[in-house]
């Protein structure tokens, strides 16, 4: 399938990165909620090529999510207000986890809850499961309780991080909200609470109005903005946070190509997630990996780790 040159490149290039003692074959994972349980994209990409698969947010009990319409297209991006629909932790463990484990990739489970206790309960349930890391989503703008409410206040970020850490046997990633005055504050709070890594950014709160009907386009009124439109904000925040904390960062927000991913890596991200791009091109994750490798060969950079935070 692969031609000789790319085979050779793979021998020459080191794309391995590590976070919290775990080694990932490359820095590319999927953004939570944009890749289903992985299964849906299994027909389009080889999941075993990915550094990790990050799952859709999973809660203790099944969540039905918000009424439709749940999404709206915007210029260079989209709004979503899915509302964290998910089948609950039991179905996740019984059905989705074995499927993901059958591939040679790391598994990052995105965790949501309505209360601090609920986050902890999900984390506890996952303690003995064969997953690699947990990503705590304290930044979803589309649910009334939990989510963003936790993520916009530094004191609460630190508190929930340290609570969750008590129950976790796996490294913890805290996913930060961009809807804040100073993201380095919440980042430092998560670090202080014991986070092993940070991921950013979640979506920016936005709105679209259907002027013909004079109504909100989304049933939920507001939704989270994602896609290439937000990339400059995300890159800035990754750079800002990389200069504020010592723990590694997973960067995301509008990554469509290997070049986009490299911006995040140069800004200070150890790994990157591909989100909305999956909807536009189901092969996006693999193409991002190809693009990073092509850049490395072209520029004779043999170790991806040399690029992390290298911007001047």
């Amino acid at each position, binding site marked *: 399938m692969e031609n000789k040159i790319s085979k050779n490149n793979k021998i020459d290039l080191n794309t391995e990165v590590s976070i919290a003692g775990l080694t990932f074959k490359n820095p590319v994972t999927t953004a939570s909620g*944009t890749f289903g349980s992985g299964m849906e994209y299994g027909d389009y990409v080889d999941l075993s090529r990915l550094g990790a698969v990050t799952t859709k947010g999973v809660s203790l009990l099944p969540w039905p999510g918000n009424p439709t319409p749940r999404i709206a297209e915007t210029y260079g991006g989209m709004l979503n207000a899915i509302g964290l629909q998910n*089948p609950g932790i039991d179905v996740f463990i019984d059905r989705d986890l074995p499927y993901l484990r059958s591939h040679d990739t790391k598994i990052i489970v995105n965790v949501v809850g309505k209360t601090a206790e609920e986050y902890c309960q999900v984390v506890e349930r996952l303690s003995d499961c064969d997953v690699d890391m947990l990503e705590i989503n304290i930044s979803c703008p589309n649910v009334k309780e939990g989510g963003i409410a936790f993520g916009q206040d530094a004191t609460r970020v630190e508190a929930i991080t340290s609570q969750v850490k008590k129950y976790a046997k796996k490294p913890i990633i805290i996913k930060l909200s961009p809807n804040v005055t100073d993201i380095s504050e919440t980042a430092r709070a998560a670090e202080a609470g014991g986070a092993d890594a940070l991921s950013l950014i979640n979506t920016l709160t936005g709105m679209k109005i259907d002027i013909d009907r004079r109504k909100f386009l989304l049933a939920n009124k507001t939704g989270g903005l994602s896609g290439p439109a937000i990339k400059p904000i995300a890159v800035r925040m990754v750079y800002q946070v990389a200069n504020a904390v010592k723990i590694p960062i997973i960067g995301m927000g509008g990554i469509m190509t290997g070049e986009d991913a490299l911006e995040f890596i140069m800004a200070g991200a150890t790994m990157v997630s591909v989100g909305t791009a999956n*909807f536009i091109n189901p092969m996006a994750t693999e193409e991002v990996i190809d693009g990073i490798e092509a850049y490395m060969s072209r520029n004779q950079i043999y170790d991806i780790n040399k690029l992390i935070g290298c911007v001047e």
Partner: protein
Amino acid sequence: MSMAKKECIKVLHNERIEEGVYDLWLDAGDMATRAQPGQFLSLYCNNGGRLLPRPISICEIDKKSKRIRLVYRVMGEGTKEFAELKSGDFLDCMGPLGKGFTLEGKKALIIGGGIGIPPLLELAKQLTCEKDIVLGYRDATFLNKEFEKYGKVYISTEDGSVGRKGNVIDVIKENDLTADIIFSCGPTPMLRGVKEFALANKIKAQLSLEERMACGIGACLACVCQSKEVDHHTNVNNKRICKEGPVFYADEVII
């Protein structure tokens, strides 16, 4: 690895067949071989400002020449862009997607409304049983001649300019049409009417639904409809129109 992918497909023909309604033939290769009536394609825009795919149902499948026909109405900027396609242009597509119609029954009633009519054409073609076809339009009609090959065609228009003035249910009642299976696609209020009619007359019905989509392949959970039973996949009362649908049995979903 990849069995499915987003492909760049050649436009064979794109023509206006009615005010705002276009007829598009694609050189669809394998997509045509795999396609079933009631499934849809995701079409992508050329303009980088518009990123999400536009779902368009398959109107006709020509497996021999590997061609797929779509009939679409210009609604917004994306479909306006498609309307400008010329033979020989290329278009990014993905598909065929979703679960289409299940061919069944001894006497079928095919009920289409507006731009919900095109997906019923391939169905009418493939369905071998006896069938009546009821097509509802606002005013100008399209495709109705092509349906005549496959069954008796009844027409309603809102303004009464062609066929009966009124809606599809009026036509069905007026003509005492009956069946053991209904296939329907059209605007939600019409589908509600069809569901009600089917229930009242104890006829099984397959309905093709619509919702805004992002992924088109079951991953994002944008396109759900409410389901009667807790769905196996979602573990809540939701079904994905792009994956479990767009065609559902009327009693599976709440519309």
